């Protein structure tokens, strides 16, 4: 009898242990996913911040460039750089036949002509001389150099030929291949060629959409929150508004995309693919988030503040505008930043309003077509080229960096400026 009681107790304690372990295991799993996730992104993405350059001797032959004696700056602008560019690539292998010369040319990006031109424009004294110029390597060689490309595949399954690899290895042996920090990733617009693709255009697109979103959503949401929290009579209509706001916060984002397409584009004829439309769509999405945050922080202001102001003879509007709202601002602002961070990561609605169009110029205003960072991730992820994989991860790192900064900022505002009432 006694023994079985002890057994029962042991069993119960074991069950207790097990249950605890399940809980611990669940948390461990969730954190494990997070770790794998971040590790995966960083391990594929860090190499995109390096770019491979081939150092090629270029002879600035005035005759080949169709330049006359003592050319002016304009002459240099208009000169023909293609021939010397081609020649300097072909000179890498003096015995190359025509096909091989073509392959040599494809070892660098199609910007090589422009890169040679810039070299001369920066230093016009080079005419007639030979200088080693840094040329962007093609994305396949870039991947080979970073070790991401399996070299042991049969040649017909590779995008780099054996011949290109041979020349490339010779260059590596001579120390004429260099890897430097990839500035162009941050300054170039999108491109079909991975080695020339950058996030500048989508970054500006994101900034513009977020600004438009902020300018619309913040004032409207704060005003709405003030009304609902401070002035609204408690009746069916305000209840309805409240139910509406809570529901809107849970409506799938793609439905807002359909709203943008069906109303903003089809009825108001706003320009397609622009951050303006994107920002308006996102602002409708962020509205409920900010309203809920602003109401919560208005509610947190203790009634004694309002009573004191009213007792001094302030009107209700004055009490609200001079006392309650300023005191609630830290909470509202941090809620706004969190809402904007959500909007910054949103993709689906922007795809529907056409912000997936290929844009290879950097937008200068919210009325220019643009992509946004998450949409850029989607576009690159759907591209077949191997070089885009690391670009996607790098773009994700930039996006996550921004989200982390925004969230930290929200935390700081909340902890630094929010008054603790007690």
């Amino acid at each position: 009898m006694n023994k079985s009681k002890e057994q029962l107790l042991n069993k119960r304690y074991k069950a207790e242990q097990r249950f605890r372990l399940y809980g611990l295991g669940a948390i461990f799993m969730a954190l494990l996913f997070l770790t794998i996730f971040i590790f995966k992104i960083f391990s594929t993405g860090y190499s995109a911040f390096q770019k491979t350059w081939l150092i090629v001797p270029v002879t600035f032959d005035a005759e080949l460039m169709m330049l006359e004696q003592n050319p002016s700056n304009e002459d240099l602008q208009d000169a023909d750089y293609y021939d010397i560019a081609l020649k300097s690539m072909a000179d890498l292998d003096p015995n190359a036949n025509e096909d091989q010369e073509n392959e040599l040319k494809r070892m660098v990006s199609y910007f090589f002509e422009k890169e040679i031109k810039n070299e001369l424009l920066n230093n016009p004294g080079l005419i007639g001389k030979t200088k080693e110029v840094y040329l962007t390597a093609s994305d396949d060689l870039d991947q080979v150099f970073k070790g991401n490309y399996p070299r042991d595949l049969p040649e017909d399954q590779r995008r780099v030929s054996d011949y290109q690899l041979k020349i490339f290895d010779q260059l590596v042996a001579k120390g004429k291949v260099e890897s430097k920090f990839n500035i162009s990733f941050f300054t170039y617009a999108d491109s079909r060629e991975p080695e020339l693709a950058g996030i500048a255009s989508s970054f500006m697109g994101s900034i513009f959409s977020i600004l438009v979103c902020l300018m619309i959503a913040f004032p409207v949401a704060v005003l709405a929150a003030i009304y609902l929290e401070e002035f609204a009579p408690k009746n069916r209509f305000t209840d309805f508004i409240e139910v509406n706001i809570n529901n809107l916060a849970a409506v799938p984002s793609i439905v807002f995309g359909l709203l943008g397409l069906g109303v903003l584009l089809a009825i108001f004829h706003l320009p397609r693919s622009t951050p303006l439309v994107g920002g308006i769509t996102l602002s409708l999405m962020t509205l409920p988030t900010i309203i809920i945050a602003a109401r919560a922080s208005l509610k947190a202001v203790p009634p004694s503040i309002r009573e004191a102001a009213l007792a001094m003879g302030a009107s209700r509007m004055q009490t609200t505008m001079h006392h309650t709202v300023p005191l609630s601002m830290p909470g509202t602002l941090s809620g706004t930043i969190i809402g904007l961070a959500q909007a910054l990561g949103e993709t689906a609605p922007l795809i529907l309003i056409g912000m997936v169009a290929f844009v290879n110029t950097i937008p200068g205003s919210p009325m220019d077509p643009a992509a946004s960072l998450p949409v850029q991730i989607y576009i690159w992820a759907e591209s077949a080229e191997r070089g885009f994989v690391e670009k996607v991860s790098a773009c994700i790192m930039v996006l996550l960096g921004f989200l982390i900064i925004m969230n930290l900022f929200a935390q700081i505002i909340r902890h630094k400026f929010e008054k603790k009432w007690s």
Partner: protein
Amino acid sequence: MNLILFTFIVLLGFTSYYFGRKKAYTIQSSNKRLTALPQFYGYYLAIWCAIPAFIIFSLWAIFEPTIVKLLVLSDYSNQGYLDDELNLIYEKTKSLSRGQFTGEITPFIEASAEKYLSLRSIAQSSKAVIVLSIIIASVAYAYKRISSNSRTREPVEKFLNAVLFTASLAAILTTVGIVFSLIFQTIDFFKVIPLFDFVFGTHWYPAKAFVRDSSEALDPSMYSDTFGAVPIFAGTFFIAFIAMCVAIPIGLMSGIYLAEYASSKVRQYAKPLIEILAGIPTVVYGFFAALTVGPFLKELGTSMGLEVSAESALAAGGVMGIMIIPFISSLSDDVITSVPQSLRDGSYAMGATKSETIKRVIFPAALPGIVGSILLGVSRAIGETMIVVMASGLAANLTLNPLESTSTITAQIVVILIGDQAFGDPKTQAAFALGMSLFLVTLCLNIVALRVVKKYREKYE
């Protein structure tokens, strides 16, 4: 021009604020008692200056293009043009007047372009004149009222109240906008495709709707067997089901652990870390699912002799589940912490262990709230787009095998609407019909979930 006028109105508004306040001070200095603080006099004047002007200004901006268009096209009214042709003529006219026209210039269009330009300039100048005279009239009226030291605070506050009220309508307007943008296309869609075929048809193949000559009239029989949404609804719920299979056990158990077992230190670090998962953009999850999880499952399957599609429902659903973990864990954590301590104490006093208390007392007490949080998770899974678009298939298969690829409502909407859309085409309308069903399903889930959670909260608070 518009911008100049706009800045002008704003500047005038500020100046009238200044003058209003100054007037109040002069009244005060003549030893009369003010009826409100001096700045209210300023606000009063500024509102009277700017608001009527803005109203006229925006009404003008809305109606000017239509009226100009009507006037320009009135030249062509009796020549039997169709509406589309008239629109084309008008577009040509506009681009010619901007100097961007590249086609052949006919004298007709040249004449209309001139007319267009002259109408525009007349409109611009008359707008400026009207807006300015409105400003003068309303400011004069308001200034007179101020001078007689009549009430200014009440009207200003009434106005502010109206502004606040209008802002609070934004949420309703958004909902109305959503329903409005979905419903017309959906009705048009069901005019061509019978509702029955949509809800019970088992073939979804919208690409077929594109293979037709646009000159032919719409023939509904062509679309039978094209827009049967059963495979898509099934795929949506199937992927959501897989996601919940991942999210519910992990999310719920971590919620329970955080609420009942974790020391405050663990809680302080683990909770925000798990919530990071909710902050990661879905496109990033999509990339992860498509590039890492999909191929990994395929390889794993091949090594076990199973045929796994690289775009399997399992990959998309699993990753979606990871995304939903924090929603369920935080909400159930909140719900469990709000169960009153007296229930726990009662159970402990009866000799129950902690896990027995959780399973037999706290869990049943917290159940409505937990169900609410799960429903919100389901609604999120159904509405999730990017993971499915990137990691799951785009062809709608009717299957219950998690290793094959399926498609969802959201993925189909994106597939149909990416790129250029032709409104009025059944394919585009189909996307809106899908959007409508998505909206209705998630709306029902949300309403039920929010109700349940709210009821539960009221019970213990």
